[in-house]
């Protein structure tokens, strides 16, 4: 097991390096001159003397060749330093530390809520296969899964604030347990719940015809115990693998939701700071996004054998 985790982590390193290099190169060669942009922003025009620009560039080490700058960046990265924002002059670590907790709260709360609501609904649908409960749940899940969050969020705002008048304008962030968090959280959960419902339902349908479920029922085990003791584990195993897929959706959703509701998280930071072509910030956020997805996929793969011991034996490499 330990060896497996180690191998997976080694497998990431070239991936992260490649990503870092591609994004850094894109920003380095394509993004335009950050110094010029900084001047444009602060002084309104670019009628500066070139010498002053060169001096600043030299001072920040931006005149050196690409590989040197990239090498230095990676060296700092290894030691946990994400560099300095060229435009604001602040440390990227600080900027991320200030915004990441909000995004993580939203992400984790979304996963918990989706699991708490989605799994019971999926089980309910599966147990009433092809009855009206099943059709209603599956139909709504299919309906929900189609609508993108940049449509749901604004439409709900119009409906709740202007139509029903039950809400003030939800803009900004007062913490996860405040009223302002209700609508953003709803949109986040709305965006990812369908996949869990459908996966759980499919799992239940598969397990229903298993001999051990029939035996348990024949022995007179109460239905609730049949569900909890005999069905939940085999049903949850594939559901856990879907979590990895869900995370990408959650990151994408968070970028949109943070923009719609003005929440100061990583998504907002991405949108706000990338317009300044501040490449340390762009590269850092990109790497964090990719790292999160990889780490969560690994976590999913590690928990898998606990849910399904058969998978532990088969776990020899990285497969489809």
């Amino acid at each position, binding site marked *: 097991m330990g060896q497996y985790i180690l191998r997976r982590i080694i497998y990431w390193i070239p991936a992260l390096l490649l*990503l870092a290099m591609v994004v850094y190169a894109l920003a380095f*060669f*394509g993004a335009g001159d950050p110094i010029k942009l900084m001047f444009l922003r602060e002084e309104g025009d670019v009628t500066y003397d070139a010498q002053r620009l060169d001096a600043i560039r030299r001072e920040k080490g931006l005149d050196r060749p690409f590989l040197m700058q990239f090498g230095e960046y990676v060296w700092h990265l290894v030691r946990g330093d994400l560099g300095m924002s060229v435009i604001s002059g602040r440390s990227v670590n600080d900027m991320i530390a200030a915004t990441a907790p909000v995004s993580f709260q939203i992400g984790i709360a979304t996963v918990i809520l989706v699991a708490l609501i989605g799994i019971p609904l999926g089980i309910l649908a599966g147990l009433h296969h092809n009855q009206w409960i099943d059709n209603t749940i599956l139909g709504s899940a*299919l309906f929900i899964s189609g609508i993108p969050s940049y449509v749901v969020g*604004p439409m709900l705002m119009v409906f709740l604030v202007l139509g029903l008048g039950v809400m003030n304008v939800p803009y900004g962030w007062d913490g996860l347990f405040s009223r302002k968090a209700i609508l953003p959280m709803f949109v986040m959960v709305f965006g990812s719940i369908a996949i869990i419902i459908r996966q759980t339902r499919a799992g239940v349908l598969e397990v229903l015809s298993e001999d051990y479920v029939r035996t348990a029922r024949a022995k007179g085990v109460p239905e609730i115990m049949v569900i909890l003791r005999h069905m939940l584990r085999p049903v949850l195993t594939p559901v856990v693998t879907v979590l990895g897929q869900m995370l990408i959706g959650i990151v994408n959703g968070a970028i949109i939701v943070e*923009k719609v509701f003005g929440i100061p998280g990583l998504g907002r930071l991405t949108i706000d700071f990338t317009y300044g072509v501040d490449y340390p910030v762009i590269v850092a956020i*990109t790497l964090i*996004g990719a790292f999160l*997805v990889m780490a969560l996929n690994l976590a999913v793969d590690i928990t898998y054998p606990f849910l399904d011991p058969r998978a532990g034996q088969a776990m020899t490499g990285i497969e*489809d």
Partner: protein
Amino acid sequence: MTTQELSATSGIELAQASRSNLWQDALARLAANRLAVIGIIPIVLLFFVALFGPTLTPYDFLAQDFTARLDSPSREHWLGTDELGRDVFSRILYGARTAVSVGLVSTAISLVVGLIMGSLAGYLGGRVDILVVWLTDVTRSMPALLLAIVINLTLKVPLEAWMEQLYLETKNTFFRQTMWVDLVLVFGALALIQWPGYARLIRGQILSIRSRNYVLAARALGMPTSRILTRYVIPNAMGPLIVAVSAGLGGAMVLESAFSFLGVGVQLPIPSWGKMISDGLRMWQTHPHLLAGPAVMMAVITVSFAWLGDGLNDALNPRQWK
């Protein structure tokens, strides 16, 4: 099978007979799925509008009427007008054109790239396979919207500078239209996001189909590879591929709008639903009709794609549990 003599020809005939039945069965199953049939209607309408949009719209999408700015829906302007007095309904119809063309082109690009990479990985195996799988893993670990933002912000300036230079050299006004730069960036970002899915699907299909007994039997009987491909591998891989393409097409349209919503998509003056939604969001409290029109349209189309995709999946992959 019991009474049949096992010869190569009867095997082929059998395959042909079952193949035509497969498609008929799939069509029948699709027609029986009520949601899928309902979903087809808006999608057909969308393609129709995208094709004939300019002749259908009551106004030009750029025509400004300063006497009717920010009007609520009325008889002259069915869905109202925006801050420049442009007809929202006409702009939505033109937006269909953006969505469909971006969806089709980017799906075609990523499908071709995915087909090539996936077949290379599936057929050559070994190091090529490992490399392709690794590349797809790396690409897929990037959240799509972040990727699009990075691409747009870094490549837009140099591409525009390059176009400007081409214009100065050739004096061809074609190079003056920055619209093409936006479109190229959006196509590129979408293709980059979507090719790994197709590549992995095709690789998986090739690996699984070529080890099936009927392919092994055909090979044992001496059937040439090209015929094995056209008779067995391609028809059997078709079902999942059609499902994936239909989902990918809808997904590309959603992403295109998401890019525009975040400001990294196709820029004005070409209308895009995502851009219209994000513009509407600025004035949603006073003029909600600017937001409602494109948002409802987007919702109808995406739900239709979800329903059709689900129906196609059930119809073409009958072995899968529903």
